[in-house]
């Protein structure tokens, strides 16, 4: 068990190293990626502008407190575009052009190889930087104490967010095992993604229920800030962790099913 973990950690290290070398090859592209993500970030910051200009309070949380939520969303978006986005876009290609075949013959997990091979080091930089700054401002303004317990709890919930993000956003890619055209589905997934830009409190109850229990999208950005604001007990944090692991197991099974279908249906 420990040896396998070490092997995968080492492989992931090589993935990152490889991606870094390849990206440094095209420095122009690197700068361009930075720029593209920055422009997207600017579009997101328009929401911040609206919040501050209207002095919006949601559930008694002032604009500075809302920065915790918008910042969390921005940070997780950064991790998503950096660690997962490129891979999930490539999976349909692997299926279509048969690159999956060679990956299947390797003595490592196929899901690991196919869904984590590429790491983009340029895209997440603006998101993570600006997101952390926003969280910092919110943290300070809401007078949240900077204790180990707060940081640990927040970090744990950030991890939960990443697991859920992986599980939810890989679904369009999984569909590509069965359907040829899935571009539109991932486009929709991306536009749903931005529903997380605000605390879920602005949505009506039924939307909140769907987004928490059916498709646990709202867990991604809400639980971290709510925990910091003292509105989320450790019990819920634990439940979120358990839920995200359960979701991961479900996605793992779904993945295996999809690959089994691939192996028996193609020639």
């Amino acid at each position, binding site marked *: 068990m420990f040896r396998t973990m070490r092997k995968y950690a080492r492989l992931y290290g090589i993935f990152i190293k490889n991606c870094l070398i390849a990206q440094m090859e095209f420095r122009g592209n690197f700068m*361009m990626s930075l720029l593209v993500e920055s422009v997207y970030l600017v579009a997101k910051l*328009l929401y911040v502008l609206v919040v501050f200009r209207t002095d*919006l309070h949601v559930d008694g949380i002032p604009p500075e407190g809302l920065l915790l939520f918008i910042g969390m969303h921005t940070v997780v978006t950064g991790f998503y575009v950096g660690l997962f986005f490129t891979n999930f876009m490539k999976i349909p290609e692997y299926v279509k052009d048969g690159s999956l075949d060679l990956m299947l013959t390797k003595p490592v997990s196929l899901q690991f190889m196919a869904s984590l091979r590429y790491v983009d080091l340029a895209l997440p930089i603006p998101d993570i930087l600006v997101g952390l700054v926003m969280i910092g401002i919110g943290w300070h303004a809401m007078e949240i104490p900077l204790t180990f317990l707060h940081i640990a709890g927040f970090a744990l919930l950030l991890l939960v967010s990443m697991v859920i993000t992986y599980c939810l956003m890989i679904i369009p890619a999984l569909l590509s095992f069965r359907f040829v055209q899935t571009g*539109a589905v991932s*486009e929709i997934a*991306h536009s749903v993604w931005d*529903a997380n830009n*605000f605390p879920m409190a602005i949505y009506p109850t039924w939307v909140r229920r769907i987004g928490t229990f059916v498709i646990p999208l709202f867990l991604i950005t809400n639980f971290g800030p709510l925990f910091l604001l003292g509105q989320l007990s450790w019990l819920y944090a634990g439940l979120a962790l358990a839920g995200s692991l359960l979701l991961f197991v479900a996605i793992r099974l779904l993945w295996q099913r999809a690959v089994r279908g691939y192996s028996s249906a193609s020639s």
Partner: protein
Amino acid sequence: MNRRRLYSAIFSMGVQHSMEYRLHFFLGLLGAMFPILVQYFIWTAVYRHSGQAALFSYSYGQIILYTILAGLVSKLIATQFEQQIADDIKNGGLNKYLIKPVSYFGYRLVSFFGQKAIYYGITALLLGGIIWFASARGALELQAIRLILFAITLWGALLLNFLIAYCICASAFYLHEISYFFVITSLLVNILSGGMFPLEIFGESVVKALQFTPFPYTIYFPVNVLSGKTEVAAMYQGLLIQWGWILLFIGLSRLTWQVSMKKYSAVGG
């Protein structure tokens, strides 16, 4: 060769092309719904909290109407040919048009309108439904003249947005990695045109400054003509300015393409 027949053939090719991607278009509309919904909830929260009747000079009904209409109009006028034009420039596809008796500009324009024809119809139907619903709820005071002017300015917006994008495309003659560039420009143009939020959120001075650019005349202006926010006098004035920009951009696109094309032929593609 009869010019009219040639261009009607290109137009119908554009229509057929759009038919092929119709599923993509409908899913795209579905995708456009989510940001509109999110904004709807945000604005609802904003107005409920502030308790004021109007924010940024918009009433609650007006801002919701703006959000929906701006979302639809941005989808309608969106150009998707940037990458194709860039490919034509980079891979020598342009040569086909240099030796044929058809202008590349004419080909792109007519094919663009062909591709948009059906969507214009669908969008018109959707708009009809929304306008009816909004006026029934009292969020919109329906005036025939505004409807007509909206239809005209919408065509103008389509044309103006085409011209802006066409001018930007000329940069493919000079820049190496171009696909990222188009992502940036189209998003920026959309923001400056008021496609995401009404321009008023940027503050009075920014709105004033933007009036001197072509961007508000693609989304912000047509939507406000319909919603009744633009006053009667300003409506006609705006229409004139819109067509002024269109004429200017026709000239500008000719110029940029002629200059760039000279470079293209000199290098030999």
